[in-house]
């Protein structure tokens, strides 16, 4: 669609081409009392898109807990903010760039990183860490390898260049993502509590400033593209993908932080999805004022851009700033130093409207309340589906030895080390990285200069999680488990969980089952966040992850942030020689185990349908508090959450680094090999029952004392030795070197 005459009245067909429905277009005409022109329709369409309006999910997102004593800013701003004491706060958010990354993996992923970084530094914070959650189709498939290679290069290309360490995340594979990959990027920033910047515009007559890169024709209507399904013809959508320039991003970051040291700024917002449109509309409407922009003043990269193109462009590395009157020259000096464009493009007005002028003619005049408040909120029909299938002795495998099972689990692409991926990211720039999630269950970054004398300093811990199989089989329980596991990963790293950002990736919400996954998982997330005191402070929704009617597995990603108040309390996951391993949260009477929905089932039963392991959130919280208490009493040497793959793979992960061995102490019920016991044995070794943690300690007596007085179940697995062999008496011996080989080489082998 060419937009030559963007002042002409828009027809229904044109509006529908821009993604509006007939009803929405009629509502717009009625509410604004005229037929909008093309530019106005484009603006309405972007603001009403799923991406900007959250129309399908809004009703349910409202139910999430968003407040708490430590919450400084919940959802609704560029990012969420939590108080970590000492006049400091953590700013964080996760955001998806799924659709663009499938069309152009390098640029899609790179701009995803750039966008989320701007969301964080626009609030005054210096970004200190990046995380990413990736989902790809079947590994080994040429398209998957092409997409993975491009996405990883794109994430690194932006993060490495701008100099923010990428410290962790997840990369998983499943055929449901063959035609819809997921690229969710999370950024974490540090800010002084009295230097936080918000986006609400204020002060009639104050200048509206445009800074950063010039506006071009890239990414036009990206928000709308990201709100629709794909067909086979995705190549034609390439122009809707933005192009990132991390170098300009770095200059913009430094220039903005330099400007923020002054007191010249009133409010500031990144031009993200729907570019100048959403940033100007949101800033003005939040401040209860209007905004007038002269489009001739916008720095343009290309000639003859129409008002439509200027307003809908998603060119990267741009910010909109409201300055105090008279502050223009001082601000301009800073941006000039950094060789960035700086233009006064308009002013704040009292009339609550967005008025755009081009060549001295009004090209847009829309009421703001309407754009923000009247955007649709849908009550889509939904059906929450639950799978109740149970595995029994008939369905489990009987032919393979424990050794061969464990080697297959460790060599599975969803279990094996993702070193091939994370080594391509600069994880140590800024000098504060402590763990990138390979040494501990959570990623850990020191708070810069928080040490003083003998005190070694504080740290932020971050975890990301989502087990899509659980969500698919039971959206509510799966939602709870996702939050619980994210929190558990923080606790076993020595952190106190504080708050959550979420990225809800689903298929087409117009389908009842998909909507049921959305509603169900939000219900689960809500319950768990309430129970674990981890409010949701920011987030993002990505729907229509479907191609030709085939939807991705439901993937509501949880990013959780916690604080470690003394870095000497950090717990790593690698056991040392001559330590005793215990399961905390389970005793010897528990010898069966949940094989349904497990990695074991997926690999050996060619299926993952089944009941989800139940979770008791009160018990989970009690377990976390217990671990924190053990840690405060210096009883834990290392710790690891029992999750994917179950007990045995998790024990082996703890032994890998130091190539240790152990003689596993089996519960009496399964000590004798026989066919009847096989289900119990496999359940014990590979079941994914929740609320369990393995710890290693040199103080077993103290641990037993604590567990008795606190009434927590524990089970002694055995003592580590340096044989490099995991002995399962009367069943099998497992060689750690072989495990290490599989763990390290599985992923690289797909790319050599």
């Amino acid at each position: 669609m060419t937009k030559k005459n963007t002042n002409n009245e828009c027809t229904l067909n044109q509006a529908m081409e821009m993604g509006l429905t007939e009803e929405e277009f009629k509502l717009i005409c009625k509410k604004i009392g005229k037929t909008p022109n093309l530019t106005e329709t484009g603006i309405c369409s972007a603001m009403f898109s799923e991406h900007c309006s959250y129309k399908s999910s809004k009703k349910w997102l409202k139910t999430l807990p968003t407040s708490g004593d430590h919450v400084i800013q919940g959802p609704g701003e560029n990012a969420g903010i939590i108080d970590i004491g000492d006049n400091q706060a953590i700013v964080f958010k996760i955001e998806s760039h799924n659709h663009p990354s499938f069309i152009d993996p390098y640029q899609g992923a790179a701009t995803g990183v750039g966008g989320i970084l701007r969301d964080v530094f626009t609030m005054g914070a210096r970004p200190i860490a990046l995380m990413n959650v990736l989902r790809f189709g079947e590994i080994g498939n040429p398209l998957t390898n092409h997409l993975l290679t491009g996405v990883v290069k794109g994430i690194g290309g932006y993060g490495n260049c701008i100099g923010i360490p990428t410290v962790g995340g997840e990369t998983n594979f499943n055929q449901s993502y063959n035609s819809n990959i997921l690229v969710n990027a999370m950024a974490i920033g540090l800010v002084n509590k009295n230097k936080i910047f918000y986006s609400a515009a204020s002060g009639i007559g104050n200048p509206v400033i445009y800074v950063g890169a010039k506006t071009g024709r890239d990414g036009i209507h990206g928000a709308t593209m990201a709100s629709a399904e794909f067909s086979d013809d995705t190549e034609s959508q390439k122009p809707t993908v933005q192009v990132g320039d991390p170098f300009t991003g770095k200059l913009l970051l430094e220039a903005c932080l330099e400007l923020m040291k002054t007191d010249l700024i009133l409010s500031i917002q990144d031009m993200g999805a729907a570019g100048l449109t959403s940033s100007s509309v949101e800033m003005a409407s939040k401040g209860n004022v209007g905004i007038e922009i002269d489009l001739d003043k916008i720095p343009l990269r290309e000639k003859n851009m129409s008002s439509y193109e200027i307003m809908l462009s998603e060119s990267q590395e741009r910010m909109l700033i409201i300055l105090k009157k008279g502050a223009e020259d001082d601000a301009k000096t800073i941006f000039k130093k950094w060789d960035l464009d700086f233009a006064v493009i308009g002013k704040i007005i009292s009339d609550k409207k967005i008025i755009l002028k081009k060549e001295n003619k009004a090209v847009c005049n829309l009421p703001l309340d309407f754009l923000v408040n009247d955007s649709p909120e849908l009550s889509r029909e939904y059906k929450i589906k639950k799978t109740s299938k149970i595995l029994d002795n008939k369905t489990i495998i009987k032919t393979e030895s424990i050794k061969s099972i464990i080697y297959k689990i460790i060599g599975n692409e969803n279990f094996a080390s993702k070193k091939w991926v994370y080594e391509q990211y600069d994880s140590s720039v800024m000098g504060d990285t402590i763990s990138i999630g390979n040494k501990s269950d959570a990623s850990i970054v020191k708070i810069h200069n928080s040490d003083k004398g003998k005190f070694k300093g504080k740290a932020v811990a971050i975890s990301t999680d989502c087990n899509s199989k659980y969500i698919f089989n039971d959206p509510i329980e799966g939602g709870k488990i996702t939050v619980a596991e994210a929190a558990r990963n923080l606790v076993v790293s020595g952190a106190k969980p504080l708050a959550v950002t979420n990225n809800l990736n689903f298929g087409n919400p117009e389908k009842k089952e998909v909507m049921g996954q959305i509603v169900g998982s939000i219900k689960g997330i809500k319950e768990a966040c309430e129970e674990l005191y981890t409010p949701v402070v920011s987030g993002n929704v990505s729907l229509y992850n479907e191609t030709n009617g085939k939807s991705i597995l439901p993937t509501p990603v949880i990013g959780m942030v916690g604080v470690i108040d003394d870095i000497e309390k950090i717990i790593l996951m690698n056991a040392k020689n001559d330590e005793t391993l215990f399961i905390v949260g389970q005793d010897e009477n528990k010898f069966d185990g949940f094989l349904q929905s497990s990695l074991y089932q997926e690999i050996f039963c060619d299926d993952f349908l089944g009941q989800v392991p139940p979770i008791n959130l009160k018990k989970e919280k009690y377990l976390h508090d217990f671990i924190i208490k053990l840690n405060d009493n210096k009883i834990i040497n290392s710790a690891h959450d029992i999750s994917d793959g179950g007990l045995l793979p998790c024990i082996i992960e703890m032994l890998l680094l130091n190539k240790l061995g152990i003689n596993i102490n089996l519960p009496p019920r399964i000590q004798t090999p026989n066919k009847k016991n096989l289900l119990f044995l496999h359940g014990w070794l590979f079941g994914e029952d929740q609320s369990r943690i393995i710890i290693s300690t040199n103080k077993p007596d103290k641990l037993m004392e604590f567990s008795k007085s606190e009434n927590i179940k524990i089970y002694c697995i055995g003592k580590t030795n340096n044989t490099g062999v995991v002995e399962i008496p009367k069943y099998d011996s497992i060689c750690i070197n072989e495990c290490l080989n599989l763990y390290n080489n599985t992923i690289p082998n797909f790319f050599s």
Partner: protein
Amino acid sequence: MRIAIVVFPGSNCDRDIFEAIKYVSKKSPKFIWHKETSIENFDLIVIPGGFTFGDYLRCGALASNSPVIRSIRDHASRGGAILGICNGFQILTETKLLPGTLIKNSVLKFLCHDLNVIAQDTLPSPFTWGFKPNTKLNIPIAHNEGNYYVNGNELKKLIFNGQIAFKYEENFNPNGSVENIAGVLSENGRILGMMPHPERSVFSHHNSLDGRLFFQNLIEQLLS
């Protein structure tokens, strides 16, 4: 001890170097913006890592034409010490203050991990004297273009002069550098360019403290 850190648009290890030097020398180094044309007398000028000017065109190529370079050349011609790390090394080869060139890693990937570099038997230099030859330092790398190349004759010259400062371990050369070269000295030993980041192994929360040794040695040597 007066130490300057040159900052270009796109430098991103300037703060890390600052913290490392401040910790080791107990004195804050001074930041110099790339547009400055006169540099006072410093005992050491550090060019930090990063992506100067986005590494567009060629790594370090645009930075090597910044106004500040002229003063850096003057400093070099006076025999002043210069340390270029990662992108700083690339800038030093682009300005021809160091021989050779740095091309894309042979694996065609950015790589970031810890590794050992081995101190070599060199001509007199504040950067290497103080380390016994074959001393291993565990220091991380993080680069996409660290594949050091010189032609055969130049390589012979480097070896003959003792200008190779650090090497990667045989079989653990991450980027395809000739002769496993990780760091190179100028003919007078006063300029060092190296790909590994010693500033990332200085503090107790880092994986190793060998970078601290590197800076301690450098400052001791410069003072002596």
